[in-house]
């Protein structure tokens, strides 16, 4: 992991981490480390999660009632805390995904013309 490599990664926008967590948990309950790994992996390692920041986000989502925590046993037979999506969380994910798509589309439209204008 060189410094150069890190620079190519993109820091997460405020609030998008919540969305990514919800999206990850659609596939099934997971523990904290697995969620972090999944996000990095699925974004082809472009999105960098400072893994620590995952935890406040998880707690925030629990507080809102979008995910729930439960005790479980991990693949190598260790006790671990699993997070799973609640019904409200699933609804929220749909909502947030739509919102994100709109936002991304809008920003994309704003940015596109600037390429054609070129430099003055």
């Amino acid at each position, binding site marked *: *992991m060189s410094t150069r490599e890190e620079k190519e990664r993109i820091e997460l926008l405020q609030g998008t981490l919540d969305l990514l967590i919800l999206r990850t948990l659609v596939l099934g309950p997971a*523990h*904290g*480390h697995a969620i*972090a*790994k999944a996000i990095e992996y699925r974004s082809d390692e472009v999105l960098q999660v*400072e*893994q*620590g*920041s995952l*935890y*406040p986000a998880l*707690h*925030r989502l*629990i*507080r809102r009632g979008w995910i729930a*925590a439960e005790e479980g046993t991990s693949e190598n037979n*260790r006790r*671990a*805390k699993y997070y799973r999506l609640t019904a409200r969380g699933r609804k929220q994910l749909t909502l947030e995904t739509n919102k994100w798509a709109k936002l991304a589309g809008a920003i994309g439209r704003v940015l596109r013309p600037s390429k054609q204008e070129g430099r003055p």
Partner: protein
Amino acid sequence: MKRRQHMLEDLDRDIREHIERETQDNIDRGMAPDEAKYAAIRKFGNVTQMKEDTREVWTMLWLDQFAQDLRFAARMLRKSPGFAAAAILTLALGIGANTAIFTVIHAVLLEPLPYANPQELVTWHGNESQLEIDDIRQQADFFSAGGGVNPEAVTYTDGTEPVGVHAGYTDGGLFPVLGVAPMLGRALTMDDNRFGGPRVAVLSYSFWRDYLAGDPNAVGKTIGVDDNRYTVIGVMPSGFGVPAYDFDLYLPLRVAYADAARYRGVHFMNTYWRLKPGVSLHQAAAGLATISARLARDYPGEERNRVRTPVPLAQAVTGDVRPALLILSGAVCLVLLIACANFAGLLLARSEARRREMVIRAALGGGRRRLIFQGLAESSLLALMGGAAALPLAALCVRALVAAKPAMLAHQNPISMDAAVMAFGIGVSLLTGLIFGMAPAWSYSRADVAESLKREGRTATAGRGGLGFRKALVTTEIGMALVLLTGTGLLVRSFAQLRSVDPGFDPARVMAIHIQLPTVRYAEIPKQLQFRRGLLDRLNALPGVQAAMASDIPLDGNELTHNLAIEGQAPVTEGDEPEVDTICVMGDYFGVMRIAMRAGRALTPQDDENHPLVAVVNESLARRYFAGQDAIGQRIRWAREKEPRWMTIVGVVADVKQYSLAEPAYPAVFTPFAQTDEGWRRWMAVVVRMPDATAAQLPTIKRQVWDLDPQIPLNRIVSLDELMGLSLAERQFNMSLLGLFAALSVVLVAVGIYGVTAYSVSQRTHEIGIRIAVGARRLDVLRLVMGQGVRMAALGTALGLAGAFALTRLMTKLLFGISATDPLTFAAVVGLMLAVVLVASFVPARRAMRVDPMVALRYE
């Protein structure tokens, strides 16, 4: 809350595991273990920061929940407006009354006096002469400054008609000691206060505004005062005043009133002193005692037995008001406690009514803390709304208080509601909500699910738990209200006693006109006599009018005492002579005032400057100094006169209440104005008895005065009835206010009793139905229900009597003619309280009597 703790406890384990997993991943990718662990930790980021962020997530939750609770509470209250209105009104009354009284206390007792470093200022009871002030100032190294002032009525003559204004004859030290800078020009200094100095004056803001039209160039101009011209050297800022006085202008004593300044024995100045930093009151008292002893040794005639006990100026200014205000604030606190008890009772009743809802919520997993918090949110919301309603109520009360009672609240600091008072009101409201909301909130959370659901389902005599507490609350309320009623009763009785005191004169249909003759034109006694005689002749010539005059009339706050020597009695050491009131009169003063003659004759026009000196004394004097002998024919004189002027006593009159109705009469000597040698007594109160003593008569009287001398101001015109009223005003004020609080508390208690009884009847409808079904008579039911009220009343009354016995002695100072444990008052108050309890519990009892057993049983 529990969840929060639980989640946070797990956090450490979660982090540890997370890092272990990452380390393992790194090792799997081929890193060395040490490097793998380091990389994992680095990738995780700042652990402390993260923990902090996580904790914050839950803190936010707490606030969020509280807001949610408040919204829920507001929704619930909207659904039961009757309950909300009752609770808010109860609290608004209690908090409003408290805030109003606190406003007054804040301004009068708590707010510092408007001078530089006011905590350093001291004064003492008893006046000083100019020479004494000089000596003390010179000898007292513990004072950094000191000065005095003598109030005098003077005439301002530059207006369209002569105006009587209040002058302060000022010692040079007065302004330095108070430390307030003038708004224009400069203040009076020591140098201004010297014999033969230039006539200079410092004006008050209001005098400058009213008579000089706020002229910014007033300094250097001259004004006419008492036939002299004074040059204005300064104007004091708005709000400046000397404690307890309302001076219009300040003149240097040795310039304006040189005669009086020369004598050590003329103790006529109020003095104010500033302690040096670090000097305690105790040290100052010791130092003053030393100085007094030294002065007594050097000048035994004037200085013996003079005691100087310094007190903080703030305390001296509020001295008379303090006990009354403290008692009123105690009383108003009781009102608040009663209101709070009622509030708690209302909340409890509501919690009983909502028990089923709460139980179900508890059964569905509502946490105990959450339920308590919800209860508290509701009570706090109610309390805050009560507080919000209380503030305008308090503002109204304050306005009424200030309007009703200028004398007691005449104070340096204006009385108004400011931030501190607002904070007080809001603080009291919040505390009330939290403390008194605790009990019902607790009872919510105690709800035992299974037990309560069972009880709710089917009950005969249920719901006693909450009721017991409510009864205890009401019992306490009865006790507190009884204390208030007793206090009020004692004041009412004192007032009645005082009203029935014989003042010794008949105030009906008598007007008093205060006149002060200007210094220069009336310096000589013959000139004064000419004016006095002329005025009385003119007034007495008016149809139906009887007029006379005296130097000081009763209940007017003025007094002048002389030392007395009696012929044939052993001479008394100088300083130990008897002190008696001395009043100069002219005309048929005793006749106009209807003061009864006890022996001898009254003073007549023949007792003038060409006839032997005579005097009339009052009964107190005759009794005290001529016990067992006839006072008539005895000779008296003023002690310490250079040439003795013996006066023969020709009559004895009944005692008159000179100072106040509550104080015994002092020994007094009445002498004819025509025979006095005291040319400085230029003041007089003309008493006019006429069939119709009203303001309509004023122009006639004024014309008589101004026909004689158009330069004479008429300082103050009052009817003697008004004077009587003024002397009672303060007591009446205290009585009315305490009475208002007592009435408020009785209403609250009645509501409380009614609430508890009505609730218990509604809870016991079933039981009462059964009782009636098995043969109980209606009267038995009545007894059953009212018995409960009577038991509360008996216990509460006992509590209240004990409290009253302990507390009413604190108000001894406010009482007159009765003891603090006046049995009649106590009996009357207990009777009243019982009557209130009976009436308040009779209404629900009647409803209980009408219970139809069939309906009651079917209801189940």
